[in-house]
C-alpha cells in the first residue's frame, strides 16, 4: 500500500506586512495578506522528496485556517502535493495551540496517515509545540527538529543537529516529524505545477464533520487567554558616537550600558 504522507501547513500573515491585533485580542487576519508559512515550505519539500524517493506515496497537505488559507494549500499543491484538506469553521476563530492540535489530530484520523510532517514552528505563533501536541494526541512517536529525514521499510530516520551533539533518530511509522529550515531549500512551483494544482482535489471539513464541539475550541475553549496587548514601542533613533579622540571609549561604554559586552 502506498505511503500516506500528510504535511501540516499553516496560513500566516505576511511577516513583511503591517501585522495587527483585532479588538478581541486575536491576530487580525483580515487586514494583511497571508501566505503559506515559509517554514512549512520545508515540510512540503521534505514530504515531496520522500514521496519521490519512495515512488509509491501520496502527499496530502492539511491546514486549519480561514477561507483564504486555501491560497496556502494551492501553493503546496502547485509545488507537487497530490491533494489537500482544509478545516474551516467560524467557531475555530481564537483557537490556541491545544485546540489547533485537537482539530488537526481529528482531521488526520479522518484522512489517514503513515507519516505526518510539520514545520519547526509557524512564522507567526512560533511556539513550535504543535508537532509534539499532535503526536501525543495521536499516540504515535515524534521525531522533531530534523535537518535530514528519510523513510525506508516502515521506519522514519532523521538527523537532529543540536548545539552540543548531532543525534541520529528513528521511529516506526506511523509517526510525526518536524523539519527545520536546514533540511533543504523548498522548490519553486513550475507553471505546470501551478496549472495542475487547479485540478487537484481539496476536501473541506467543518467542526461537525470532525465531531468537535464548538466550545472545545475557539476563544471559549482556549487554555490560554490574552489579557492585554501593547504594541512594541517605535524604534528610537540610534546613538551617534562622534570620534573626537574618545570614540573608542564612548563606544565601549555604550555597549556596556546596553549589556552587549
Amino acid at each position, binding site marked *: 500500500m502506498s505511503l500516506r504522507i500528510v504535511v501540516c501547513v499553516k496560513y500566516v500573515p505576511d511577516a513583511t506586512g503591517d501585522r495587527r491585533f483585532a479588538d478581541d485580542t486575536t491576530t487580525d487576519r483580515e487586514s494583511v495578506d497571508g501566505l503559506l508559512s515559509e517554514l512549512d515550505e520545508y515540510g512540503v519539500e521534505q514530504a515531496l522528496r520522500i514521496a519521490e524517493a519512495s515512488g509509491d506515496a501520496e502527499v496530502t497537505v492539511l491546514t486549519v485556517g480561514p477561507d483564504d488559507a486555501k491560497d496556502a494549500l*494551492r501553493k503546496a499543491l502547485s509545488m507537487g502535493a497530490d491533494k489537500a484538506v482544509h478545516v474551516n469553521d467560524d467557531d475555530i476563530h481564537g483557537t490556541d495551540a491545544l485546540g489547533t492540535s485537537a482539530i488537526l489530530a481529528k482531521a488526520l484520523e479522518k484522512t489517514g496517515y503513515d507519516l505526518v510532517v510539520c514545520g519547526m514552528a509557524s512564522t507567526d505563533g512560533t511556539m513550535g509545540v504543535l508537532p509534539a501536541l499532535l503526536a501525543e494526541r495521536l499516540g504515535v512517536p515524534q521525531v522533531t527538529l530534523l535537518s535530514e529525514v528519510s523513510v525506508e521499510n516502515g521506519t522514519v530516520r532523521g538527523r537532529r543537529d543540536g548545539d552540543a551533539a548531532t543525534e541520529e533518530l528513528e521511529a516506526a511509522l506511523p509517526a510525526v516529524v518536524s523539519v527545520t529550515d536546514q533540511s533543504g531549500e523548498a522548490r519553486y*512551483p513550475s*507553471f505546470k*505545477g501551478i*496549472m495542475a494544482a487547479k485540478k487537484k482535489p481539496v476536501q473541506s471539513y467543518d467542526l461537525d464533520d470532525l465531531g468537535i464541539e464548538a466550545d472545545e475550541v475557539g476563544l471559549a475553549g482556549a487554555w490560554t487567554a490574552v489579557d492585554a496587548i501593547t504594541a512594541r514601542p517605535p524604534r528610537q533613533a540610534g546613538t551617534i558616537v562622534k570620534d573626537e579622540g574618545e570614540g573608542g571609549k564612548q563606544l565601549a561604554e555604550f555597549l556596556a550600558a546596553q549589556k552587549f559586552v
Partner: protein
Amino acid sequence: MLDHRLDSEYEDLRRTVAEFANDVVAPKIGDYYEHDEFPYEIVREMGRMGLFGLPFPEEYGGMGGDYFALCLALEELARVDSSVAITLEAGVSLGAMPVYRFGTEEQKREWLPRLCSGEMLGAFGLTEPEGGSDAGATRTTARLDEATGEWVINGTKCFITNSGTDITGLVTVTALTEPATRSSEVGGRASTRPAISSIIVPVGTPGFTVSKKYSKVGWNASDTRELSFTDCRVPAANLLGEPGRGYAQFLRILDEGRIAIAALATGLAQGCVDQSLSYASERHAFGRAIGANQAIQFKIADMEMRAHTSRLAWRDAASRLLHGEPFKKEAAIAKLHSSDAAVVNAREATQIHGGYGFMNEFPVARFWRDCKILEIGEGTSEVQRMLIARELGMTP
C-alpha cells in the same frame, strides 16, 4: 469587456517568479555582473522552475503555458535584473521557438526537451558585422553539397546572445541558400528578397568558431559573441523549415520577440520605480526625506505612468498574438514605447539616487547600463517606427 486582472494561474506564476527574482537573483547578480560572468547557478535554478519551457507543450518537455506566461516571467525577472531576463528571452524566443515553430517532428524531439529544461541553451544568429537592421542583406552563405548531402556554411555573425556558454547546444543561423535573389511576398507586398534559409548548427561542428566575449556596456552577466563559419558542414536535415523561407520565418520570430523585449523593458522600468520609491523615503536632505519633495514625487509618478502604459502595451500585443489576431503593429508599439520608458526611467532613477546612482553596487546603476540596448536589440527604435508606419499603409 477587457479584464485587467490576471487569471489565477498567471498571477501565481508572476508571484513565484517575483519571489525567485528577489530571493535568488537579487542577492547574487551584482557579483556576476561585476565580473562579466555568466550566472550558471541562477540559470540552472530557472531551468528547474521550468521557465525555459514556459510556452511549449508538455510533450516536448515544456510547461504547457504560452507566450503571455513567458512575458510575465520576463517582466518580473527584469524588474530585478536584465542579464538573466535576456538569457531567458533569447533562450526561449530566439533559441527554442524557431525549432518549435518551424522544425520537423524529429528536430523538435531532438532539441526541445533539453532546451525546455534549461540544461541546454539555444541561440539565433541573424545579425552580421555588415548589418543588422537590414536583415535581408545577409551575406553568410550555405551551399548544399549534393555529393555528401551537407550544407556548407561560410560567413560571420555578430552580437549573438547565449552563443558561447558552456551549455549552449545549438545556434540557428540565417544564410543565403541561393546566390540569386528571387521575388517573394513580404509583409503583404511583393518585393525582391534574397532566398534566405535557417539552418541549425550544433555547437562543436568543425568550422564553427565562437569568439571570446565582447566587452559590453550592459547586460554584463549575459553571453554575447561573434561567430564565424568556415566551410562548416552540417547535414542537409538541419535545415529549419522550408528552403528560402528563412526571411519570413525570422520576421515572425522577431515580431513575437518584440513583445518579449517589451515585457523585459517594462520590468526594467518598474524596477526603477521600486528602487526609487525606497531610496526616496530613506535618503534625507535639508532635514527631510528627499521623497517629501514634490519634484521627486512627480518624477516617480511619471516613472510609474511609463511602466504602467508599457505593461498595457505588451499585454495587449501578447493577447492579440494568443488569439491568433494580427499583432505586428501592436508589438512594434509595445517595443518602441517600453524601451523608451526604460531609458527615461533609468535616467530618472539614477538622478534620484544622486551620486550613489553612479556607483555600480546600486541596482539602478545596472538599470542605467542595461536600458540602452533595449532601443537597439531585436529591431532598433527606428525599425519599430518603420514597421508602425508601414502598418499604417505608408510606403517608403
